């Protein structure tokens, strides 16, 4: 199964570009770091508000910047997919990559839970109001899981052998 994924992806034109065009990898890395900063900057700000900090700002107001956090995520999803297509074997065999994906799933489920069941209640929280415990937990899980995604991503070349 994983052998099939590796051979199929490596046979694609995109995979060849990623490896043979020497500037492609550093370009995608740069964009991956820009996306990371956008995501953590914007989503982290909302998380802090959910935790009860920057209380002067209503939750809905902070949420207004979220499209930029999503933009950061999409940049990283695309560049991350390009890295994977370029060298699938070095990720599939890397335990750090699986941890990274694991924490991505945690972060994703947390967002899903927030947006489907808690967003309405959260948006009603105005300036100066504290947040209920559920939202504090969501904010804490979000910050922790995104930083773990960053950590395991950074560990890819050290715990495994990814470049």
């Amino acid at each position, binding site marked *: 199964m994983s052998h099939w994924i590796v051979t199929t992806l490596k046979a694609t034109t995109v995979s060849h570009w990623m490896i043979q065009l020497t500037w492609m990898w550093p370009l995608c890395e*740069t964009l991956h*770091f820009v996306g990371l*900063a*956008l*995501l*953590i*900057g914007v989503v982290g700000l909302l998380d802090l508000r959910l935790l009860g900090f920057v209380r002067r700002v209503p939750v809905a*107001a902070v949420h207004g910047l979220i499209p930029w956090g999503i933009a950061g995520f999409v940049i990283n999803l695309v560049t991350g997919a390009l890295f994977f297509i370029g060298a699938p074997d070095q990720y599939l065999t890397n335990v750090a990559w699986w941890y990274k994906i694991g924490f991505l799933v945690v972060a994703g489920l947390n967002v899903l839970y927030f947006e489907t069941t808690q967003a309405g209640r959260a948006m009603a929280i105005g300036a100066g109001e504290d947040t209920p415990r559920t939202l504090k937990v969501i904010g804490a899980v979000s910050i922790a899981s995104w930083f773990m995604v*960053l950590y395991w991503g950074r560990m890819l070349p*050290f715990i495994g052998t990814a470049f």
Partner: protein
Amino acid sequence: MTAFLTTLENSGLSTWLRESNSIWAYPTVLTLHTIGLALLVGANAALDLRVLGFGKAIAVSDLRPLFRWMWIGFWVNALSGAVLLAADATTKAAAPMFLIKLGLVAAGVAVVMLLDRQVYGPATTPGVITPLARSLAAASLFIWVVAIAAGRLMAYPGLFFGI
């Protein structure tokens, strides 16, 4: 100068950082450098975006606490960066891309300090964003993207027009 860099590179900390296989050596310092980037550039980008007119429901005056996160990120990166530089002082300090990156970081910090004065300074009217503030915010986003690119390119000496 060369003698100083050699001494720095041969110091106990530098040698440990380069040669230790411990996950607490190079990988951890590099991770701290990425976390600092996320805090500094992420918080700065959130402020820039608001100044540029996104997320208008947030009062600009409420975003001043972001500066605390920017400075935490800045100092984490100044320290982790100094340690990373010491580890490979003779090669890194002489690399043009390192000096370019250092200049860009200095420019990024200078621009956000000017932005601080334009938005929160004593001579400003609360809630009014001047055209100069907008220009500084746009310049800030641009400089950080280029600084991140320069940082990434330090790992690929010679790739960018021989630099």
